[in-house]
């Protein structure tokens, strides 16, 4: 998607998710106020509309073929910061990046951050995003005190936790309405640096054991796993875990501006890169280097927030490295006690040699109340794979079956290919979700390619 136009400007454009697969065409409308948003929803036409933030959903959740896509980045005001209680009230188009810029100097941090800062607050609610702190903090909507939702009848409702509409919207992929604003609880920090412990795990057993035994000691925890390693090294990984650095952990010089937020930024990835740049060999080499360059064990390293949380944000448009064919991200969760399923999936990916670099394994804490919210207590694995890999569709279908049979699910914000029949198996509350949508939006105003594809 190209750059947006002026307020309420309308143009027709080809739209894809971050994975750059399955483009469809929609009219883009960028409301700049509540009034414009209400008018835009009223005027959306027969093929409906869907809200879109910064386009980081990998699949087709924020595209709407033949209809309207509301670019919400025009609603980007931070209305109020309660620096005593640690609550920010802002419009839905504000990005987590912007919140960090504004809030860190005040000593506050967002409650949950995914692997990119370039997601909007509206998107964070719609996908009920999670981060490296899920095992202690849960997902994003757990920290939302209320949000304002523009529904199909043109009304703006204030929605609070504990209601059906809240739970349907938390993770509901924008299909219950347009989130216009939210009040989010923050976490206090003394500095903008992280203290990070790094260690290597020799294989999957070692990795799961380390995560199970010691995760509770860290607020943030994640493992980069080398899915191209086979045999005895299957599942070898680098764990990085940490917490916000207290003031006294900083060297004297850094203590003068402990809350400075300075994310580094490299030049963007060039356009028009060929497919197949990330083949088995190049990715295998990268993964091996990545594994070996990590220290066997290092504690208390100071890292910037951007380095620890958002390493890929340093390269704008990094999704272009997958070439014209784009890529799919596969993320699933299986519960505790389903380690065998996880192991089988990892072994199959390793055996097939999917060129996936920097796959991520995490241990989730308890799930939230969102009906279509993804996280649930257990293990989650996420990996990128070039979409052009022959036979990939059928291969991922097989993994889906194993995940579904284990009571697990895949993440809708990343999906671009799930078999529709599996939605209700993976998300048992999907029928209730449809019922609520039918009641609240009988004309199907809120529609996306994802909702058409999965019959949501």
């Amino acid at each position, binding site marked *: 998607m190209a750059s947006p136009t002026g307020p309420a400007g309308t143009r027709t454009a*080809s739209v894809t998710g971050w*994975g750059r*697969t*399955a*483009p*469809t*065409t*929609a009219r883009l409308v960028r409301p700049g106020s509540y009034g414009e948003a209400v008018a835009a929803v009223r005027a959306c036409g027969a*093929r409906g509309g869907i809200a879109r933030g910064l386009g980081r959903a990998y*699949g*087709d959740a924020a595209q*709407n*073929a*033949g*209809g309207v896509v509301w670019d919400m980045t025009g609603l980007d005001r931070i209305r109020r910061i309660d620096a005593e209680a640690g609550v920010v009230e802002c419009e839905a188009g504000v990005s987590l990046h912007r919140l960090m810029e504004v809030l860190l100097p005040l000593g506050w941090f967002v409650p949950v951050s995914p692997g990119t800062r370039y997601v909007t607050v509206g998107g964070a609610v719609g996908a009920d995003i999670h981060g490296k702190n899920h095992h202690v903090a849960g997902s994003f909507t757990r920290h939302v005190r209320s949000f304002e939702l523009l529904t199909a009848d043109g009304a703006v409702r204030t929605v609070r936790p504990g209601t059906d509409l809240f739970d349907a919207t938390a993770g509901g992929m924008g299909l219950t309405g347009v989130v216009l604003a939210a009040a989010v609880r923050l976490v206090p920090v003394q500095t903008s640096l992280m203290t990070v412990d790094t260690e290597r795990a020799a294989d999957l057993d070692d990795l799961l054991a380390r995560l199970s035994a010691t995760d509770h000691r860290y607020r943030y925890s994640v493992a980069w796993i080398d899915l191209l390693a086979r045999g005895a090294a299957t599942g070898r990984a680098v764990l990085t875990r940490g917490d916000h650095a207290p003031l006294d952990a900083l060297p004297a010089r850094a203590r003068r501006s402990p809350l400075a937020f300075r994310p580094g930024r490299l030049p963007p990835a060039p356009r028009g890169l060929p497919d197949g740049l990330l083949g088995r060999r190049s990715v295998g080499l990268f993964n091996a280097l990545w594994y070996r360059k990590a220290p066997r064990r290092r504690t208390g390293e100071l890292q910037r927030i951007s380095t620890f949380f958002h390493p890929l944000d340093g390269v704008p448009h990094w999704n272009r490295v997958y070439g014209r*064919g*784009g890529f*799919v991200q596969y993320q699933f969760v299986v519960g505790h006690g389903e380690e065998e399923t996880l192991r089988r999936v990892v072994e199959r990916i390793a055996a097939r040699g999917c060129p996936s670099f920097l796959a991520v394994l995490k241990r989730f804490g308890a799930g939230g109340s969102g009906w279509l919210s993804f996280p649930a207590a257990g293990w989650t694995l996420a990996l990128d794979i070039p*979409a*052009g890999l*022959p036979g*990939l*569709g*059928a291969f991922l279908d097989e993994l889906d079956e194993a995940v579904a049979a284990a009571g697990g699910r895949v993440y809708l914000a990343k999906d*671009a*290919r799930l*078999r*529709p029949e599996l939605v209700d198996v993976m998300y048992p509350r999907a029928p209730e979700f449809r019922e609520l949508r039918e009641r609240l939006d009988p004309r199907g105003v809120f529609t996306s*390619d994802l909702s*058409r*594809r999965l019959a949501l």
Partner: protein
Amino acid sequence: MKDAFGSPQSLLILGGTSEIALATARRLIARRTRTVWLAGRPSPALEDAAGQLRSLGADVRTVPFDALDTGGHEEALGKVFAEGDIDVVLLAFGVLGDQERAEAEPAEAVRIAGTNYTGAVSAGLVCARSLRVQGHGSLVVLSSVAGRRARRSNFVYGSSKAGLDAFAQGLGDALYGTGVHVMVVRPGFVRTKMTAGTAPAPLATTAEAVAEAVGTGLRRRSEVVWVPGALRPVMTILRHMPRAIFRRLPV
């Protein structure tokens, strides 16, 4: 909707008894396709084809469609699109005809041209308009290598495919940026009932191979697909061969 791999959930076949089209349908049903529309002249063969695909688990419906009745295309195809989005339209009707008879009876030549070219222009444009409104979808047009260079032995058929091929390329350019993708498929000699009794040309292929190439082309959003792929360089040479020499080739 198509998924990330270009696999469609709904398919409309124009020329519902075409072996290539049915092989393609079988292949797509094995992935994501659940709804199939077979458009064709009502016949036991059309019902047979529908039954076969139903047995694979698809929801199959037939719709009366006659390539030569261009006046009826809007109504017949409009009904299909009114029922829901179509992710892939496969334009697969066509007749080989009898070259000798066509040369002797111009009316027969007109029937071939009318089916393969005029009928396709009409149906192609009707579908293109609906796909455009949807903002997504692929129009797959079965052309032929015969359309790339006129051959003495079947130039009436070849000229109709040449027209169709040019039309489809232009339509693809016209639809660029609308979310609709047009893919021209150029098979060589395909062993089917249409070519039964004809001596196979070199690089002959099968309906299954064409179906596989269509699947791959949809995944890659290709604009032109040759089946087999080796035909592409071969035809490049043949197209540039002086006529005096080409005339003498045993093709």
